């Protein structure tokens, strides 16, 4: 033990007699077919990271290299203006959508189970779906190059440039469709991360003992849910304008170009923090390990994560300061943009204090952390500068902003990613990355980044606009541009050294041992590389720094010791994981984690087909895609009997006090459905806000010549679907009473009433003299109505499946969690119906 209370010889995880059996049980099947069915967190996490890095080399590096070559000297013509447009569009789109996010989601899925002291993520198949949709979406996006239709309207795809009039070919369709599919993958992974952090931890790991990396990922995942969903809606509206003739963004027909900017930046600014928050989580893990000092201000950092998560949703319009918003509105966004500097500053103080109080080991991972601090603080300061409206009016769309954002994203995000790779590489390969190469790697990147991007600030202040293919000589920009291009020639060898280091060290690096850094968090207690199941015997956490404070990881209160020992030996024929209370970390449930399956790949293929059908305008293909997706989801969730008896289940519970649900988790399923409802509710809220925004942009609503919608049939439809929700709830209560016939009758009634409501509503809408293609009023009316109808129909399909399985006797008065969740979704869908149609039918009258 050192005088600072931090120990060098940290405890290790107990291996246990069941180690080999568990390892084999949790391994993914071998061979190509096995790889396609793989769901294990190691496989999915590594794939996400490698795919993200592959897209980085393809889009981040190649594009920027060509752009910098073109700008090295004035009046060059290395690339054509059109090609230059494609380069910067691709560079922004790929790095923002296909690189950083999957890398962090990969980190999360790979590292979280070990850090949290559990065996898996809650939904391994959802993780696999997330990966496949991300990969296929990225490939669809990139396939535009094969067809010579590379998107060229900027990564923000502003209308009207990206609309049907000015981008009539399919290039922007590739952008919308490829990236939307990838966004769906991101949301799937976010659900997985939220529930993983909140519910799947080691016994005793209370919220107050949660590692900061897990806090950061939790906040990131919620931000993905709240940020990506509005973008998916924005993409939907843009594709409707492009492919179906709606008028959302056509100002000549009641639409609004600013609506797109709002929808895009409601995603686009949080996106920066979605990337930054997990990076700060990585830094918060490395700093204590490398300085041998407990992190200063743990609670302050947690508060900062949460504060950044919220505040980042109130800054989006600072990208729109020059778009003519009213001054009163500008002040709101300017103030919020400055306020977010407070939590970011708190974090910096906490890290610097920890370093100050500790004794740094100057390993490569720590060098990257220090590099991060230097570059990020500079980028943060220029961010506060541009939050001031008067300055932003001057530097908007200039190279100053390009310099600022690259300081934030390379210093604030890429450096922590490198730090994280150097830090965790030994855990997953068993070998250390080479320190000498690491130093070359760091210094080349550090010097190269500053050389490339610092002159951009000056160029911006001297008036150089962004997104220009070339510039005249003699404007004072020549030397600075040449310096900036020279920087790229330092960065590229830096990346080359990194790749070489990874390739070489993977086979020939020094052996790492379980805890090469003497770190405090749980992942360093298991062998490097870890077994497939991670933990044979789950740890019992009694401290925020378990490896520094605990002599033994498996001792604690007798009931917990008994629980983790029992779980190490039983079951050995199905994948068991523990669920704990969100706040208190007490074991709540043991459940069966899903195993390998081909259905996630099939489902993501179906999802991609739906979108690709729109891309190639063979819309009947979408029906096939939908059918494949539904079949895959049904197959995915097909109940399989647990390989054990009820007596075994009951015995384990009698022995440990913790119930067993080998049929699937009650707790995790309830949380999953809750988050899905949240996702749908966010999408719905975005459409409602779009409705009100379009209303505000139009002095007359509905447009002249269109009558207010009559209430009659809509009220009947609303009564029918409301009755359907009541019937579903009633039916559920009968199941609790074990009154099976009445339960089934209630389900049938719920389905029938909902279908009747849908029919009445469709008849009424069709009878209105409003089409979607003439005016934005009709566009939003049909879209919002279609959304509500679709959600209720999805609930009806789920109710139908519940009915099917009920008739086959799957559910009992004791075990019927899926029905409860389906009814929850149905009730939520009905509530959104009532609000949505309420707005559509009363909005024109009341406003």
């Amino acid at each position, binding site marked *: 033990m050192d005088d600072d209370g931090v120990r060098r010889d940290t405890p290790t995880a107990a291996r246990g007699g069941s180690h080999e059996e568990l390892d084999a049980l949790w391994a993914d099947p071998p061979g190509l077919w096995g790889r396609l069915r793989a769901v294990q967190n190691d496989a999915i996490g590594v794939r996400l990271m490698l795919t993200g890095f592959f897209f980085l080399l393809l889009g981040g590096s190649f594009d920027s290299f060509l752009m910098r070559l073109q700008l090295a000297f004035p009046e060059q013509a290395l690339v054509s203006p059109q090609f230059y447009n494609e380069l910067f569009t691709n560079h922004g789109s790929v790095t923002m959508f296909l690189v950083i996010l999957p890398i962090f989601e990969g980190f999360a899925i790979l590292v979280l189970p070990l850090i949290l002291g559990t065996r898996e993520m809650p939904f391994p198949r959802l993780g696999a779906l997330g990966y496949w949709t991300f990969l296929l979406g990225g490939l669809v996006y990139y396939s535009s190059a094969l067809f010579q239709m590379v998107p060229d309207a900027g990564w923000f795809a502003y209308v009207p440039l990206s609309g049907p009039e000015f981008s009539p070919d399919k290039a922007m369709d590739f952008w919308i469709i490829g990236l939307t599919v990838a966004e769906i993958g991101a949301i799937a992974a976010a659900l997985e991360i939220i529930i993983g952090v909140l519910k799947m931890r080691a016994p005793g790991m209370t919220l107050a003992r949660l590692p900061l990396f897990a806090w950061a990922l939790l906040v990131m995942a919620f931000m993905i849910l709240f940020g990506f969903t509005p973008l998916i809606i924005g993409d939907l509206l843009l594709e409707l304008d492009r492919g179906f003739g709606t008028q959302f963004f056509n100002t000549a027909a009641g639409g609004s170009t600013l609506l797109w900017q709002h929808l895009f930046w409601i995603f686009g600014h949080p996106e920066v923090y979605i990337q930054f928050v997990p990076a700060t989580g990585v830094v918060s893990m490395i700093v204590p390990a490398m300085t041998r000092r407990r992190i200063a201000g743990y609670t302050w950092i947690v508060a900062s994560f949460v504060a950044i998560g*919220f505040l980042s949703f109130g800054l989006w319009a600072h990208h729109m300061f020059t778009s003519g918003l009213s001054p009163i509105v500008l002040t709101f966004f300017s103030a919020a943009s400055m306020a977010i500097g*407070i939590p970011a500053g708190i974090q910096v103080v906490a890290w610097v204090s920890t370093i100050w109080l500790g004794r740094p080991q100057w390993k490569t991972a720590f060098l990257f952390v220090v590099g991060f601090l230097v570059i990020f603080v500079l980028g943060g300061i220029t961010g506060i500068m541009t939050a001031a409206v008067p300055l932003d009016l001057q530097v908007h769309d200039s190279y100053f902003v390009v310099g600022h954002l690259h300081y934030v994203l390379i210093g604030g995000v890429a450096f922590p990613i490198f730090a994280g790779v150097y830090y965790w590489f030994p855990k997953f390969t068993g070998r250390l990355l080479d320190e000498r190469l690491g130093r070359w790697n760091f210094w080349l990147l550090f010097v190269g980044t500053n050389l490339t991007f610092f002159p951009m600030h000056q160029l911006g202040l001297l008036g150089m606009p962004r997104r220009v293919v070339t510039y005249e000589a003699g404007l004072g920009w020549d030397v600075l541009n040449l310096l900036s291009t020279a920087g790229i020639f330092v960065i590229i060898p830096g990346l080359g050294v990194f790749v070489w280091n990874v390739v070489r060290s993977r086979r020939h690096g020094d052996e790492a041992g379980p805890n090469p850094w003497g770190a405090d968090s749980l992942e360093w207690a298991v062998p490097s590389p870890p077994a497939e199941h991670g933990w044979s015997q789950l740890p019992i956490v009694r401290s925020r720094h378990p490896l520094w404070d605990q002599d033994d990881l498996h001792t*604690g209160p007798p009931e917990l010791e008994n629980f983790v020992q029992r779980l190490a030996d039983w079951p050995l024929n199905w994948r068991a994981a523990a669920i704990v*209370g969100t706040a208190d970390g007490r074991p709540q449930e043991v459940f069966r984690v899903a195993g390998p399956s081909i259905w996630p790949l099939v489902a993501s293929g179906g999802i991609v087909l739906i979108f690709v059908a729109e891309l190639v305008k063979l819309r009947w293909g979408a029906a096939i895609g939908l059918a494949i997706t539904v079949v895959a989801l049904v197959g995915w969730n097909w109940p399989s009997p647990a390989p054990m008896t009820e007596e075994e289940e009951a015995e384990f519970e009698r022995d440990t006090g913790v*119930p067993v649900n080998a049929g699937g988790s009650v707790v995790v399923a309830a949380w999953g459905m809750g988050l899905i409802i949240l996702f749908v509710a966010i999408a719905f809220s975005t459409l409602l806000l779009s409705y009100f925004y379009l209303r*505000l942009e139009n002095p007359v609503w509905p447009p002249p010549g269109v009558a207010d919608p009559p209430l009659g049939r809509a009220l009947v439809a609303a009564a029918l679907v409301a009755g359907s929700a009541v019937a579903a709830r009633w039916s559920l209560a009968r199941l609790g009473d074990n009154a099976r016939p009445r339960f089934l009758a209630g389900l049938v009634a719920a389905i029938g009433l909902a279908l009747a409501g849908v029919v009445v509503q469709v008849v009424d809408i069709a009878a209105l003299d409003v089409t979607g293609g003439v005016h934005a009023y009709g566009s939003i009316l049909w879209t919002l109505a279609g959304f509500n109808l679709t959600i209720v129909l999805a609930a009806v399909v789920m109710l139908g499946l519940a009915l099917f399985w009920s008739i086959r006797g799957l559910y009992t008065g*004791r075990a019927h969690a899926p029905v409860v969740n389906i009814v929850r979704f149905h009730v939520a869908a009905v509530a959104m119906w009532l609000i949505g149609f309420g707005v559509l039918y009363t909005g024109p009258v009341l*406003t």
Partner: protein
Amino acid sequence: MTSDRSDPDRPDDDGATRPGETDGGRTTQASGTPMAVDLASDPATRRAMAMFVAAPTVWFVHFMFVYLVAEAGCTGSGTGLSLFDPPVPVVLTLAATVVAALGCLAVARWQYRQWRGGRRVDELEQPGPPPGGTDLDGDERPLAFVGVLLGLLSFVSVLFVGLPVLWFTGC
């Protein structure tokens, strides 16, 4: 919440007295382990969630409210929207700012009391030390302090956003 576990009043139940029945029968098949299925039956979790989101949510609701009122006042025209013509946005913004700022302070005070009470939010519902015994980490502060910080930060942010209308009022 609807139970997805057994109901002790069910006719086919053995009728034996079990621990956990008072929570509405959310017990499991073997020995009646209380079955905390979701937030509805897990007050400690609900309290922890509230601690983290209460003050920032007040901030966000305030932000969206003043923004939408300003948009309605500056952009829209129509029978219902004329209610928001100037100077109504400024008045509403200031009123909302006062209410939201007080709300943030109230949250901060509530969390401060939790913190000073020396009881961790995660052990409020259960007597005795948290699982795993007392914390060995001497400098660990109770998590309720996060709630205090978020309350104060939200308070400052609400003032940041709301008060500039004292100077900038134009559309």
